[in-house]
C-alpha cells in the first residue's frame, strides 16, 4: 500500500514555463440549464460544478441564462467596465508617480462587479472586497470622492484613517472595505438577517476572493446564511491567484468553490466571470431566489487577476508574464464590446470615442481631486481627526492625548 505523502497542490505554470490552463474546463455557452430560482438546493449541485456561460466565441448570447437585456443596459455596463479599467490604470500610474501610497487594480475582473451591480436593486446592500471598485463606480459614487480617499486629502471620506482603496458609501449602500480578509462575509449575512427580521425586502451581497474562502468567516457566513435562510448573495471571485498562491491552495483542485454552497445546503452557481451577461443572469437568479424567501446563493465567478495583486506586488516572480493572453475566458470588456457590435448597437469607432471620453473624465476628476491636496502636498487634513470617531464622543483620555499632540508632545 502506497504510504501517504503530503500532497502539494499543483501550480500549472511558473515563471519561464508556458502558461497552462488545461485545468479550466469550459462548458460551451448556452449549455447550462436554468432551473427555477426556487428549486431545492440539491438541484443546484450540477450547476455548482459546471460553468454558466452566455456569450459564445462570436459574441452571440446563447441559452436559457441569456438575461435578454436592453441595449441601454448593456451599454451602461460596457461604460462602467471601461470606466473601471481606465480609472484603475490612471490610479496605478499616480501611485507609480508617488502621489498615492498604494493601489489595487481589478484589471480583467471588471464584469464581476459591474454586472452584479447592474442586476441588483439600488437599495440592496453591497459588502465589497478591496478589488470591487466596479461596485462603487457602477453605483455612481463620484470619481473625485474615490480619488480623494486614495489621496488621503482634505476631502477624504475616511478622514485620512484608511489605506487607499478602503472606500465606503453609505449613500450608495456600499459597505466600508476592510483590510482584513473575509470579515465582511458574515457581516453581510447578519445585515440580511436583520432585513428579514424587520420584514424588509432588501438583500445583501458580498464578495471575497477564492483565497479568502479558507478564512473562518467564510464558514461563519455560509453556516448562518444556511441556518436562517438569509436573503444574501455570497460571491467568490475566483481569479486563480491569492497574491502568489494559486487557487489550489484554497482547495480549488477537483472541486469548485461554488460546490461549497450545496455542501452546506445553500444554492451554488459557477459562472464565467468574464461574461457580463452570465454574471448578470446568475446574480438576477440569486436575487430572485433570496427575495422569494429561499435564502442564499453562493456564486463562484471564474475570472483571472490580469494584473499584479497590488502595487506592492510583482507577479513575474511567481507566474508567467503572458498568462492573461492565454486565459481561456478572455477579457470581459472585449467580450461585451464584441457582443454589442455583434447585435449592431456598437462600433469600434464608438468604442474609441468612449475610451477618449472616459480618459478625459478621469483626468478631469483627478485634477479636481488634487485640488483638495495630497498626502504630502497642499492643504492637509487636521491631525486632530486622528482622535475622533474612535468613540462617538471623545473620552477624557483621548481629549488629553489630542491636546498633547497639538502642543507637540
Amino acid at each position: 500500500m502506497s504510504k501517504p505523502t503530503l500532497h502539494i497542490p499543483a501550480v500549472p505554470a511558473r515563471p519561464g514555463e508556458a502558461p497552462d490552463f488545461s485545468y479550466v474546463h469550459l462548458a460551451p455557452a448556452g449549455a447550462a440549464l436554468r432551473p427555477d430560482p426556487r428549486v431545492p438546493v440539491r438541484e443546484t449541485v450540477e450547476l455548482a460544478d459546471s460553468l454558466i456561460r452566455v456569450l459564445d466565441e462570436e459574441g452571440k448570447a446563447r441559452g436559457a441564462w441569456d438575461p435578454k437585456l436592453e441595449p441601454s443596459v448593456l451599454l451602461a455596463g460596457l461604460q462602467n467596465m471601461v470606466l473601471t479599467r481606465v480609472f484603475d490604470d490612471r490610479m496605478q500610474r499616480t501611485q507609480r508617480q508617488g502621489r498615492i501610497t498604494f493601489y489595487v487594480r481589478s484589471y480583467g475582473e471588471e464584469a464581476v462587479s459591474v454586472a452584479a451591480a447592474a442586476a441588483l436593486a439600488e437599495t440592496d446592500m453591497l459588502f465589497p472586497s478591496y478589488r470591487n471598485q466596479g461596485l462603487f463606480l457602477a453605483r455612481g459614487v463620484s470619481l473625485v470622492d474615490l480619488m480623494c480617499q486614495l489621496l488621503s486629502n482634505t476631502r477624504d471620506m475616511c478622514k485620512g484613517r484608511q489605506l487607499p482603496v478602503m472606500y465606503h458609501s453609505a449613500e450608495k449602500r456600499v459597505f466600508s472595505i476592510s483590510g482584513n480578509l473575509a470579515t465582511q462575509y458574515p457581516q453581510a449575512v447578519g445585515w440580511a438577517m436583520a432585513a428579514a427580521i424587520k420584514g424588509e425586502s432588501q438583500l445583501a451581497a458580498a464578495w471575497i476572493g477564492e483565497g479568502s474562502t479558507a478564512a473562518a468567516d467564510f464558514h461563519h457566513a455560509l453556516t448562518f446564511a444556511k441556518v436562517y435562510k438569509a436573503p444574501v448573495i455570497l460571491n467568490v471571485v475566483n481569479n486563480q491567484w491569492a497574491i502568489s498562491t494559486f487557487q489550489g491552495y484554497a482547495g480549488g483542485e477537483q472541486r469548485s468553490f461554488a460546490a461549497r454552497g450545496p455542501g452546506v445546503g445553500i444554492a451554488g452557481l459557477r459562472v464565467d466571470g468574464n461574461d457580463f451577461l452570465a454574471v448578470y443572469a446568475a446574480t438576477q437568479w440569486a436575487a430572485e431566489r433570496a427575495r422569494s424567501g429561499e435564502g442564499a446563493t453562493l456564486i463562484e465567478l471564474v475570472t483571472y487577476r490580469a494584473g499584479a495583486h497590488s502595487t506592492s506586488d510583482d507577479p513575474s516572480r511567481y507566474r508567467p508574464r503572458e498568462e492573461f493572453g492565454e486565459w481561456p475566458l478572455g477579457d470581459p470588456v472585449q467580450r461585451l464590446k464584441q457582443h454589442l457590435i455583434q447585435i449592431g448597437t456598437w462600433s469600434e469607432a464608438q468604442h474609441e470615442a468612449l475610451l477618449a471620453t472616459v480618459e478625459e473624465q478621469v483626468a478631469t476628476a483627478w485634477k479636481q481631486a488634487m485640488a483638495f491636496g495630497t498626502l504630502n502636498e497642499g492643504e492637509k487634513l487636521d491631525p486632530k481627526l486622528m482622535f475622533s470617531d474612535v468613540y462617538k464622543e471623545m473620552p477624557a483620555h483621548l481629549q488629553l492625548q489630542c491636546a498633547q499632540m497639538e502642543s507637540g508632545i
Partner: protein
Amino acid sequence: MSVTSTMNMVQALNSAMDVMLERHASVVVLGEDVGYFGGVFRVTDGLQKKYGAHRVLDTPIAEGGIIGAAIGMGVNGLRPVAEIQFADYIYPAYDQIVSELARLRYRSAAAFTAPLTIRTPCGGGIRGGQTHSQSPEGVFAHVSGIKTVMPSNPYDAKGLLIAAIEDDDPVIFFEPKRLYNGPFDGDPDKPAQSWLGHPMAEVPQGYYRVEIGKASVAREGSAVTMVSYGTMVHVCIAAAEAEGVDAEVIDVRSMMPLDMDTIAQSVEKTGRCLIAHEATRFAGFGAELSASIQERCFWSLEAPIERVAGWDTPYPHAFEWQYFPGKQRVQRGLRQLLNIEG
C-alpha cells in the same frame, strides 16, 4: 424611579434585556442556547417566549459568526445583545471584535457603526476549571474603539446593561458569574450567600441607567484605597473589615472609559493603593491601573502600589482556592501596604 424588587444578578440582567426589548423594536438578543432554553445561566430566561424567536435567537456554535452577524445586524439598524456563553470562549470572536467592531466607526468616519453589546460570564469560583473561569478584560481594555464594563452587584448590572444597549459604541459586558446568585467575599468554606437583603439587590423594575465610565465608591475610608471590580470588590471589602483597616474601596465598574478622577481623588487622600483583580497579574488590567495611578498620584504615594491578582497560570480545577486571590491574599497585601508585620 419605578417600584423596586429584590433581584439577584441573573434577574437584574434579565430585567434589563426585558425592558430594552420592550422599549425598542430594534433590540435583539442572540447567542448559544439563549432562546428556547433561556441560557445556561438562565439570564435570558423567558425572553424568547415573550418577544419571539425572531428577536431572541438561538445561534450556531460559532462565536466569530455570532459577532460577525451581529455587526451586520447593527449596521442594518438593530441593537444586538450577543451572549458569549463563557468569556473563555470569546477568543474565536476576537478578530471580529478587534479588527471590525472596534474599528468600523473610525475607518468609515462614522458612515457605518454597529451598536453592539456583548455579554459574557467571566471569573472563577464555581469549579469551572481553566475553560470556565477566565477574566480576559485586559485583552479588550487595550483595544481602542470598544468599551469594557464589569458590574459587581444587581443594581449596577441592570443599569449598566441598559446603558450598554443604548450606547452607540460597542460594549463588552463582563458578568462575574460567581456573583450571579449572591455576593462572594472569597471564602469558599462559608455557606453561599444570596443577594437577599443586600442594598444593591433592591432593583427598580423599570428603566434606569448607570452611566458607563463612572467608578463608584463601594466603601468609604481614609487609610488606603482599594481599586477593584467585579467579584473582587466584595473580597476587598471583606479583607478591609477582617483586617480592621479604614479602607476606601473603589468599584471601577468600567475599565474603558476609566474614571481616573474618582480613583486619583481617593489615592491622593489616602496615599496608599492596592489594586485587586481575579485575572492573571502579568500585563493584566491592574498594570494599567497601577501605571496611571502612579503617573497621577506619584507625589502623594507613601508606599508602592500593591497588586493582588490571579497567579500567572491557567485557572486550575483542583487548586481553585489557592489560585483565587481571596481574602487572605488581599489582607496580606493590605499589611504590606501599611507595612504591618506578620
